[in-house]
């Protein structure tokens, strides 16, 4: 705990707001539990979710603490360039998954992403993906838990371990009771609450710093003090020609390939956590609309989650307020970077803003919004974990022919196991000064090679199971080798890389992660192609509905829908609006 942060007590009204929220969340789980009778109800929400509900759950499952606190931290650390996670990364990938991948996922009737891999390739490819995905969800959930423990510790002075366990207990209760349906209901509820809690913070803070112009002026001063051009924190593209000219430390090619292509497409197209929400939709057309509906709020999230971090940094760096405390060493002295500037604890940017701007009452609401983000992210990971564990590991390799009631029981037990493992992962996340960075690193190891496997599997029918498995293994190994031979500037060898030696130093952790992802993707693609060419492909007839060229085009009857419900129309609107945002913040 940093002594630079003032621990602020909550008033009765703040506790009342939190208590009301807990009551509703648990109440939803209690009501929904009556509809959970089979494993399909528990793991797939019965495939009867309306598109708009699944769409909000789709975006909310991703709106965990790592999004709210992590994007705030990245906004403070990297400025408006963090919006690339949305406008270059998420939105194009969400459009792609809606138009091109949902027909495969929904149409194949696979119950999970690893199961699709079994249908398309073979058993060992499914096992590899199921195992790595299980590890990744546990890590993601752990990051969410750590973020929330840190928040409780900051705001209330509570013991971090006790607060993590308390919050995890509530998530455990409602996901165990109502499974995916309960998680989806609460994700929609939490989405609304997160917006209600953060929107007034953005309005107040932006007004306080003199609007966008006032913020730009403060950030220009901060940039000059760090050796960057004045607009480097407020322009998304202008300074990406040279990595030394922007706080991210990456050039446009690394950004486009690493984030825009590999990491984002890898996450949104193959991560079962989000795909599971779309697969719960009531029809194939609804499933295609789910990511597009989610894209509308998603493109506006930078205003909600990145701006608070930018404002906190602007006020801290210009000395107007001390909102982001420095990290401390063992002697409780501020850690300094290579330029002699204090290493800031960016994860505290958004929580500090809540303390700074909100009076009691509103503080309870803001705190509840952060709680909601934590719970929604954690529940998303836990429900994805229990499905993959039960269907793709337990049912496949441990007890293949048990009763449905048994699998329902295993799903609930896996929920408890997933939460316990997440608690362990939370302690690993402590060694990073930006939780978004650790998460992106995990994605680089797991999702980046997986996206190459999917892309080749769906669009190249010659790709084989041996090729896919070898490619996945080689891609993950490639990520480890790249990470093990490089380090971000100022970091010591260890969990941040450099454990095999040091060949290259990147300007930031994010730049290192982008290139780790590119390495993993390229290695997986090359190895998959080479091994596929020397192994026997599956008969073409077995690939119907699994490969693009062997699947009947869907959407032929879209013209019967009103224009605003047609997936292609929605996609054009989403992409146009995103392009405009890129231009406005160029």
């Amino acid at each position, binding site marked *: 705990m940093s002594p630079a942060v003032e621990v602020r007590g909550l008033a009765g009204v703040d506790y009342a707001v939190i208590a009301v929220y807990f009551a*509703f969340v648990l109440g939803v789980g209690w009501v929904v539990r009556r509809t959970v009778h089979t494993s399909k109800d528990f793991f797939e929400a019965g495939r009867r979710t309306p598109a708009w509900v699944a769409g909000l759950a789709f975006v909310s499952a991703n709106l965990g603490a790592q999004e709210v606190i992590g994007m705030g931290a990245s906004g403070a650390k990297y400025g408006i360039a963090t919006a690339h996670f949305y406008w270059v990364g998420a939105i194009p990938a969400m459009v792609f998954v809606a138009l091109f991948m949902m027909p495969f996922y929904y149409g194949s009737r696979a119950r999970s992403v690893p199961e699709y891999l079994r249908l398309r390739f073979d058993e060992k490819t499914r096992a590899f993906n199921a195992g790595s995905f299980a590890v990744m969800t546990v890590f993601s959930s752990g990051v969410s838990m750590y973020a929330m423990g840190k928040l409780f510790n900051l705001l209330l002075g509570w013991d971090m371990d006790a607060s993590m366990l308390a919050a995890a207990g509530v998530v455990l209760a409602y996901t165990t009771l109502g499974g995916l349906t309960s998680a989806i209901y609460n994700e*929609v509820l939490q989405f609304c609450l997160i917006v209600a809690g953060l929107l*007034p913070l953005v309005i107040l803070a932006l007004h306080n710093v003199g609007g966008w112009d006032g913020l730009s002026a403060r950030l220009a001063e901060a940039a000059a003090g760090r050796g960057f051009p004045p607009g480097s924190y407020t322009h998304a593209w202008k300074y990406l020609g040279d990595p030394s000219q922007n706080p991210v430390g990456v050039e446009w090619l690394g950004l486009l390939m690493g984030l825009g292509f590999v990491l984002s497409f890898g996450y949104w197209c193959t991560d079962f956590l989000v795909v599971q929400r779309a697969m719960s939709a009531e029809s194939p057309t609804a499933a295609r609309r789910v990511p597009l509906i989610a894209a509308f709020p998603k493109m506006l999230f930078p205003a909600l989650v990145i701006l608070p971090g930018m404002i906190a940094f602007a006020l801290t760096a210009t000395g107007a307020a001390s909102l982001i405390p420095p990290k401390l060493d063992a002697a409780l002295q501020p850690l300094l970077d290579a330029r002699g500037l204090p290493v800031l604890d960016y994860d505290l940017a958004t929580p500090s803003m809540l303390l700074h701007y909100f009076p009691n009452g509103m503080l309870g609401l803001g705190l509840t919004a952060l709680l909601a983000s934590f719970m929604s992210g954690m529940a998303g990971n836990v429900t994805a974990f229990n499905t993959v564990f039960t269907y793709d590991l337990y049912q496949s390799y441990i007890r293949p022919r048990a009763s449905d009631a048994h699998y329902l029981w295993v799903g609930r037990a896996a929920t408890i196991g997933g939460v316990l493992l997440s608690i362990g992962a939370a302690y690993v996340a402590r060694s990073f000064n930006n939780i978004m960075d650790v998460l992106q690193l995990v994605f680089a190891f797991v999702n980046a090679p997986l996206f190459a496997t999917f892309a080749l599997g769906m669009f190249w029918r010659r790709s084989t199971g041996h090729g896919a498995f070898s490619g996945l293994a080689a891609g993950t190994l490639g990520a480890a080798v790249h990470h093990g031979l490089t380090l971000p500037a100022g970091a010591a060898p260890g969990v941040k890389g450099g454990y095999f030696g040091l060949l290259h130093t990147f300007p930031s952790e994010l730049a290192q992660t982008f290139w780790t992802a590119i390495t993993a993707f390229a290695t997986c693609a090359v190895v998959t192609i080479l091994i596929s060419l020397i192994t026997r492909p599956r008969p073409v007839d077995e690939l119907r509905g699994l490969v693009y060229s062997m699947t009947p085009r869907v959407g032929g009857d879209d013209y019967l829908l009103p224009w605003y419900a047609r997936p292609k129309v929605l996609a054009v609107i989403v992409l146009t609006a995103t392009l405009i945002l890129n231009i406005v913040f160029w």
Partner: protein
Amino acid sequence: MPLDVRVPISGLFLAVGLLLLGYGAAFEGLGTSAGRLNAIWGGLMVLFGLVLGYYGVRAERRTRVGARTPAA
């Protein structure tokens, strides 16, 4: 779906909104910026809760009526 999701969201917004509105108006006082902020935002949450609740309950009723009506 077991219930229209707008119903619990509406309930949550009404409950939290009323808490903020009441606290801002009665305890902090509308003469203070903290009181005004709580009251205004609480009021907006109540309004949102009412609108959402109206549509949620209406959809619930239609679903129930539909479920009771025998298929033609």
